[in-house]
């Protein structure tokens, strides 16, 4: 397992299987609809988890570039599916859809 894989934990969840809470805390949720993310950028504490939900009617695929430059493909998301991403590096992450690269989300960890 690479360092990147150790510091980024990704869980693919079926829609509705897991509730909105994560470890008892509010989890930032980002939607995907109309081939755009619901936010262009967010700032979260380092170590937090965000949930990306495919509210769209097309397939999406998350590609994550970490502050250290490491890239990781986080699989595909069918409509209705969601992906949780834990961001353990300090700095700026860039998330794009691998299929629709116009979908871009900047995540700043602090």
């Amino acid at each position, binding site marked *: 397992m690479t360092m990147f894989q150790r510091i980024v934990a990704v869980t693919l969840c079926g829609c509705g299987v897991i509730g909105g809470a994560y470890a008892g805390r509010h989890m930032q949720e980002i939607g995907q*609809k*109309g*081939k755009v993310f619901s936010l262009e950028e967010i700032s979260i504490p380092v170590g937090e988890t965000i949930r990306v939900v495919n509210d*769209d*009617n*097309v*397939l999406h*695929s998350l*590609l994550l570039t970490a502050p250290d430059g490491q890239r990781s*493909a986080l*699989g*595909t998301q069918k*409509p209705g599916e969601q992906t949780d991403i834990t961001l353990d590096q300090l700095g700026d992450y860039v998330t*794009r859809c*691998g*299929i*629709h*690269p*116009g979908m*871009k989300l900047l995540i700043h960890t602090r």
Partner: protein
Amino acid sequence: MIIVDKNSTCLVEKSGPHAVSATHTVDVMAMLGRCRERLSRGAYSQAMSRGWEPLFAGLLAVGLFTLSVVASAEPISSELVAMKAQYQRPTTIPSLPSNPFSAAKMALGQQLFFDRRLSGPATMSCATCHNPALSWSDALPTGIGAAGNHSVRHTPTLLNLAWAEIFFWDGRADSLESQAIEPIQNADEMNMPMPRLVATLRAIRGYRVAFDTAFPGEPISDSTIAKAIATFERGIVSGEAPFDRWIAGDDGAINESAKRGFVTFNTAAHCSACHSGWRFTDDSFQDIGLSDGDLGRGQIVEGVDALHHAFKTPGLRNIALRAPYMHNGSFATLTEVLNHYSNGFVRRPSLSPEIHRLSLTDQDVEDLVAFLKTLTSLDTTVVAPALPISETK
């Protein structure tokens, strides 16, 4: 045409008000009515039974035939107006904060673009394959490198890349700057190592002056070469076409066949699912079922089966001048392309969910081709610039 405002932002010259016109012809209105009726009675229910909910939901999402419209029986003209509103041209050209536009960079980039000394054997320039006289491509099925070798992929046009997200057929470059210098170094293309190119340019007095003007205090380097070429390429913008005049309100700018083709493009033919917006691309990567074995973006992004055989959706501006077509240059005419989409594609697991049998009629194809021809603009002639001469000892 390009102009520059006081803030050094590059602007696309507007030729008139881009207000969406509500004018339309009875012919197109009748067609919309038929499409709506067909959608509500037959095709929609058939599609749902075949598991195409996402496909139709995509259509609905771009506002073409929403269920609310079907249910509320709003005037058909509003559908055409909404359809046309998605194709208005922008008024400014974007650039990266790390490489803001300047006229000096653009002029230097144009010199570099046309200079054969950027290739290893000094036999080809960027313009050899991206020829402005051929809509910034080469009219060949696949490109030819400095050694005379054929590439495996068609040379893409450079039109309207300032708005693109990632670059190359497989999206392997994140910026126009990183894209610009890759073919220079690629052994199968221009075959010029960057250290050698930097040394070559530093030895030419005219380039030393031009770089110093464009990048004061910075050396001639990979970075400044890339920024100059990218700045020039961002200025390669297709001009106003008859289609744009129609969008702007000139009802006579395109003929009735083209108007029917526009509606078919946005409805029955499903083209606008990916060929959307004024550039006619959403920059997405799709497996459109061409039978070659090229994995495309699947080679760049590992572990995502949906990206196998997926290639970047090209924009359609000036498409009638850009034959041959597809990532492998395998189709000579637009009619061949449309027949492929109608029912000529290879069915495989990675096939885009946007691709399905269309069964277009000959009239549909004729109308679609007529529409696509209205995207051709009469662009300003690009002249190869004077180049700095190499000093002789």
